[in-house]
């Protein structure tokens, strides 16, 4: 795991000290809110509906057990005993008091964590495939590159006042689990003829104007990545629309100027700045790579796993949904669901965080990941340890077997917390999950991604949900719009609006109709919801959602 060097350490400490002074000056009245707001946002501190919210970065989603323990400590000491893991691989605390925030940041700095660039018009926390370094289908671990980008972008003088926020995501696998096509820059490590390089995708994004990113370079030599990325950000920094914050993202710049023009400008800029990169970045990358060396995998029989799998149907069900193929023989990637039916998606209590930290310590080479799907991953577990691990998860109420299924829902905080929200999202997710559990159909339904946002900003990724739900305010009443056919993988697609929205008490029955209706429409048991949608188009699904209109038209 990446360990802070002296420079990182000093930098983060310095920022905590600065912020402590700023908070003191805000409290004693020498700073106004207008002066203080940009300062607190630079340190991840928001003011929401009922309280402050602190957003803590988990760079590329990777945590050690000690760091997870520290997150538990923060939840218990400064919050109401829980934290909320988000789609951007961050954790948010919903109830801190202003005076405590400098202490929280100081506690985080002790374990090499911070809240820098989790907000504001900067290059945000770089997100990565949550199976990085473990997935069987990966060509290389993307996290060293993510860390290089983090170091390069943190406090980069040219990029502290960008037209808008800028988000980079990276994967090392063809199977995209990092939604790279919905980011300002998406990077995919690829190996061509034995050489490692990067596919650079630009101009993706969700929010008010959702766009799928376009390929800017299909294969960039790895050593050119920093100058090339700098060229992209620099071209946008110059062209980006500062007049209108809704048009300020690079997706709009790419859309307005066209990918060919952007490509030409980027290549020019790249040629101009490349000589300034002396290759030091590559030395730094080599150094970082050593810190991400894979753990010493052991060679052991998996009989205990095979026996439990054969004997225990609950274990079998959990293993079938929550395990993913690992690149090392005898190992598995474990996804711990934070989506117990009826619970708040992404929330974990301090006790649960400690249990997960302990399990990572005992069985998982001290490593945990936060997934953008708001679950926690133990990336390296030997199969022989899985029966014991499963038992421990069960006693901590963390053994829900629903990864990738209908109740594994992404939901943003919505109007239960967020000041920008137009409707609630959490209770909708809770009710859908409870309903599919009552019906006991999600294992039959299979792979299905439901994603919910509480406003057009799309923090809950609704545009790329197979079923997307967007909460709106229609004349002072909550109203929910459904989109269908979205996809956040390498086959990325923006969902299509199905039709008029549904009232708060109509949306869950509408989703139930969609799910059961799909079961009747699919060609065979293995045809997933999204496959059926692609084969049949929107019409039969709309007919299910709006039976009255379908009858009237007939």
């Amino acid at each position, binding site marked *: 795991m990446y360990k802070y060097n002296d420079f990182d350490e000093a930098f983060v400490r310095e920022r905590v000290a600065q912020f402590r002074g700023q908070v003191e000056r805000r409290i*004693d009245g020498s700073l106004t*809110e207008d002066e203080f707001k940009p300062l607190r946002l630079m340190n991840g501190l928001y*003011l929401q*509906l*009922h309280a402050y919210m602190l957003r803590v970065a988990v760079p590329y989603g990777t945590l050690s057990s000690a760091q997870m323990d520290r997150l538990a400590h923060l939840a218990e000491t400064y919050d109401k005993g829980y934290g909320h893991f988000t789609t951007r691989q961050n954790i948010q605390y919903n109830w801190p*008091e202003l005076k405590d925030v400098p202490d929280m940041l100081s506690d985080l700095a002790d374990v090499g964590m911070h809240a820098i660039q989790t907000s504001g018009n900067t290059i945000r926390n770089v997100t990565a495939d949550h199976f990085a370094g473990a997935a069987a289908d990966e060509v290389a671990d993307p996290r060293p590159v993510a860390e290089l980008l983090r170091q390069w972008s943190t406090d980069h003088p040219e990029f502290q006042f960008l037209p808008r926020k800028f988000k980079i995501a990276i994967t090392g696998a063809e199977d995209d689990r990092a939604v790279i096509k919905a980011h300002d820059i998406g990077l995919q490590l690829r190996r061509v003829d034995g050489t490692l390089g990067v596919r650079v995708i630009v101009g993706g994004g969700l929010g008010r104007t959702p766009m799928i990113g376009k390929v800017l370079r299909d294969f960039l030599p790895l050593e050119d990545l920093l100058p090339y990325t700098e060229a992209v950000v620099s071209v946008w920094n110059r062209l980006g629309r500062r007049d209108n914050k809704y048009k300020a993202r690079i997706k709009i710049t790419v859309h307005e100027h066209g990918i060919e023009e952007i490509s030409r400008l980027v290549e020019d800029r790249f040629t101009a700045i490349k000589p300034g990169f002396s290759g030091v970045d590559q030395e730094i990358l080599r150094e970082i790579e050593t810190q991400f060396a894979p753990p010493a995998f052991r060679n052991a029989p998996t009989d205990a796993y095979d026996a439990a799998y054969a004997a225990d149907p609950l274990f079998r069900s959990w293993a079938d949904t929550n395990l993913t193929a690992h690149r090392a023989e005898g190992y598995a990637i474990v996804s711990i669901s934070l989506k117990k039916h009826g619970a708040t998606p992404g929330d974990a209590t301090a006790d649960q965080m400690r249990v997960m930290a302990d399990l990572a310590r005992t069985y998982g080479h001290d490593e945990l990941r936060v997934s953008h799907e708001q679950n926690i991953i133990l990336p390296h577990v030997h199969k022989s340890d899985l029966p014991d691990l499963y038992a421990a998860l069960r006693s901590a109420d963390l053994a829900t077997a629903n990864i990738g299924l209908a109740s594994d829902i992404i939901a943003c905080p919505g*109007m239960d917390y967020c000041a920008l929200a137009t409707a609630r999202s959490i*209770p909708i997710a*809770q009710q859908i999950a409870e309903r599919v559990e009552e019906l006991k159909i999600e294992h039959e339904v299979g792979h299905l991604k439901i994603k919910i946002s509480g406003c057009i900003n799309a923090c809950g990724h609704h545009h790329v949900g197979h079923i997307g739900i967007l909460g709106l305010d229609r004349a*002072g009443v909550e109203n929910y719009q459904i989109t269908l056919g979205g996809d956040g993988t390498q086959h990325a697609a923006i969902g299509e609006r199905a039709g008029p929205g549904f009232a708060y008490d109509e949306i869950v029955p509408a989703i139930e109709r969609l799910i059961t209706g799909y079961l009747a429409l699919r060609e065979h048991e293995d045809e997933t919801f999204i496959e059926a949608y692609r084969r049949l188009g929107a019409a039969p699904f709309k007919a299910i959602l709006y039976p009255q209109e379908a009858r009237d038209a007939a």
Partner: protein
Amino acid sequence: MPRQFTPKVITANRLLEGDAVWFTTQDTWSGNIHDAEFLTDEAHADLRLLEAQAQAHVIAGAYLADAKQGDNGPEPTHFREAFRTRGPSNYPHGKQEQNHV
């Protein structure tokens, strides 16, 4: 015809705790919307908002929110403002926990 002014209350978040508060006729801040000053005149409401905003050492982000007069004092008319009087719906946290309602 000028648009009719809908009655308002002034609300903000408390600087230290961050919880929702409402501005009273006494120039103080209450955690209960029923204690708020009920504003029916636009010019007076704008003036009171300036006075409320001047208390920057106590609160942050003061604004005018639609309200109606109820049996116990002002009440919210929009669901967003109603949530602010209670707290989130997924846990019994926030004001609903303090008020045991």
